[in-house]
C-alpha cells in the first residue's frame, strides 16, 4: 500500500546541500498500523510530505496505493486522508459543519453516503457538541477530533497522521487512540502515524519505523524494538538509546 524505494529528499540551504531524507526504503502492506519515530529534525515530516504529494522526492521512488504522489496528486488525494497535528486542514473561520460540507463537495462524496459517514464519525468522536462552532474557537482536543473526522469522511484506504496527539490531555489521547484502533480494525484502513509519544507506539503500533538523520534506523515490531537493548526496562530507555547511539546520554530523571 505504501512503498518507498531509496527515496531521498535534499534541500539547498544557504548554498549547502542538506539531506533531509536519504536512501529510505520500506514497504507497508494494506491494513497495517505503523508508527514512525525519530528525534526532532530526523526527517519524519519530510517523509510524510513526500507520501502525500506535497513535496517531490529528489531521488528514489515513492508509491502510495500504487500511485506516484508527485505525478498523480489528485487521484491519490481521493484515496488518502491526512491529519497534521500542528496545523489544521479545516477552514478556520467556518463552523465545523460547513468544513465537512466543503470536504464533501471537494471529494465529491455521495450525499447519502456522506450523511451516514458523518453520523458514524460524530458518534465515534463525540463531535455533536461543537458542530456549529467556528473552528478557531475550538479547543485543541476538539479540533483534533474534527481533523480526524475530516480526514476520514471520504473513506480513504490510507490514513497518514503527523503527530496527532501532540499537546493533548490524557483523556483526549486515550479517545483518539481507541478511535484509531477501531478505524484500523473495522475498516482495514492502513494507518501510518508519526509521533513523539511512546505511549502511542506501545498501545497502537504493531510495527515501528525509526528515522534518524534522514535514514531508516530501525524497521520491525515493538517486540524487536525492545530486543535491541536487552536489559533496558522501558521503551523510553530503549528509544533514547537508539536516538543517542554513540553520543553522551543525559542521566535519567528519577521520579521524586
Amino acid at each position, binding site marked *: 500500500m505504501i512503498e518507498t524505494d531509496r527515496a531521498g529528499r535534499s*534541500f539547498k540551504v544557504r548554498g549547502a546541500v542538506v539531506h533531509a531524507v536519504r536512501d529510505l526504503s520500506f514497504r507497508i502492506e494494506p491494513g497495517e498500523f505503523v508508527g514512525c519515530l525519530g528525534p526532532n529534525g530526523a526527517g519524519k515530516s*519530510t517523509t510524510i*510530505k513526500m507520501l*502525500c*504529494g*506535497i*513535496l*517531490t522526492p*529528489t531521488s528514489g521512488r515513492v508509491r502510495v496505493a500504487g500511485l506516484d504522489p*508527485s505525478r498523480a*496528486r*489528485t*487521484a491519490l*488525494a*481521493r484515496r*488518502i486522508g*491526512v491529519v*497534521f497535528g500542528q*496545523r*489544521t*486542514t479545516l*477552514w478556520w*473561520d*467556518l*463552523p465545523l459543519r*460547513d468544513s465537512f*460540507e*466543503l470536504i464533501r*463537495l*471537494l*471529494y*465529491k462524496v455521495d450525499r447519502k453516503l456522506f450523511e451516514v459517514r458523518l453520523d458514524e464519525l460524530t458518534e465515534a468522536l463525540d463531535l455533536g457538541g461543537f458542530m456549529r462552532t467556528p473552528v478557531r474557537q475550538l479547543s485543541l482536543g476538539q479540533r483534533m477530533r474534527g481533523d480526524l473526522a475530516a480526514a476520514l469522511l471520504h473513506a480513504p484506504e490510507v490514513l497518514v497522521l503527523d503527530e496527532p496527539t501532540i499537546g493533548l490531555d490524557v483523556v483526549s489521547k486515550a479517545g483518539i487512540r481507541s478511535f484509531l484502533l477501531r478505524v484500523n480494525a473495522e475498516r482495514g484502513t492502513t494507518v501510518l502515524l508519526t509521533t513523539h509519544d511512546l505511549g502511542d507506539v506501545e498501545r497502537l503500533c504493531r510495527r515501528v519505523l525509526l528515522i534518524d538523520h534522514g535514514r531508516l534506523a530501525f524497521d520491525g515490531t515493538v517486540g524487536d524494538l525492545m530486543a535491541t537493548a536487552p536489559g533496558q526496562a522501558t521503551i523510553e530507555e530503549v528509544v533514547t538509546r537508539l536516538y543517542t547511539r554513540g553520543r553522551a546520554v543525559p542521566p535519567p530523571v528519577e521520579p521524586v
Partner: protein
Amino acid sequence: MVRTYALLAWTWTRAAMAYRASFAIMVVLGVCLTAADVAVILVIFSHTTALAGFTRDEVLFLYGSAGLPFALCDLFVSNVDRVSQHIKAGTLDAMLIRPVSTWLQLAADRFTPTRAGRVLQAAGVLGYALAVLDLDARRLWMLPVMVVTGAVIFASIWTLGGAVQFLLTDAPEVINSFTYGGGQLTQYPLSVYGRDLVRGVTYVVPLAFVNWQPALYVLDRDDPFGTPGFVRFLGPAAAAVLALLAALAWRQGIRHYRSTGS
C-alpha cells in the same frame, strides 16, 4: 470544474448569510466604495465637458465596460493573489492534499458574496452610459465580447500575480499595482496617459484590450495614438495568449513549491 467552484462558493455564501444585517451592510458599503470612483469622475467633469477628447458619458462608458469585468473577477477569482498568505500560514499544504486543483481552491477560498454589489454598480453605470450615448446598434455585438475578454485578461493578471508569489513570498503587495492598478488605469480613456505607458499596456500587459480598443470600435472613434483599425478586434487573441502564459506560470509556481517546500 465550474460546478465544484459554484458549490464551494455557495457554502461560503451560506455561511456569510447567517449574519443578515452584516451581509446587507457590506454589500451597500462595497457599492459605495466603488461609487467613490464614479464620484471622482463626476467631480472632474464638473469643471470641464471633455477630458482628453472624451465626454463625461463616454468616460462613464469606459468606466462601466472595464469595471464590470474587473468586479466579476474581483468576485470570483481575486483570492488567487493570496498565495503568499497561504504559504506563510501553512494552509497551502491543506489544499495540496485535496483532489481538486489548487487554483480552484484558492479562487474559491473565502469567497466573499458581498462583492457582488460592485458588479451591480459597474453594470448600472454601464447601463446608464449605454442609455444616454447614441451608439450604432450594429456595433453593440462587441459589448459582450469586451466583457468576456476583459474578464479573462484580469483573471490572467490575478493568476500571474499569484504565481509570482511562489517566488516572492515576502512582497505580495507589488501585485496590487498590476491588478488594482490595471483596474484604475482602465477607468479612463487611454488618451489621458503618456505614449510609452499606452504602448506598455497594449503590447506588454494587454490592458488596452479590456475596454479601450473595443470601445474605440463601439464609439466609432479613431485612436489618438494612431493604431490601425484591425487592432480593435485583437482583444480575444491577446486574452488567449495572456491566459496561456498565466496558466503556465501557475503550474510552474506550484511545481516550484512542491520541489522546494516552504
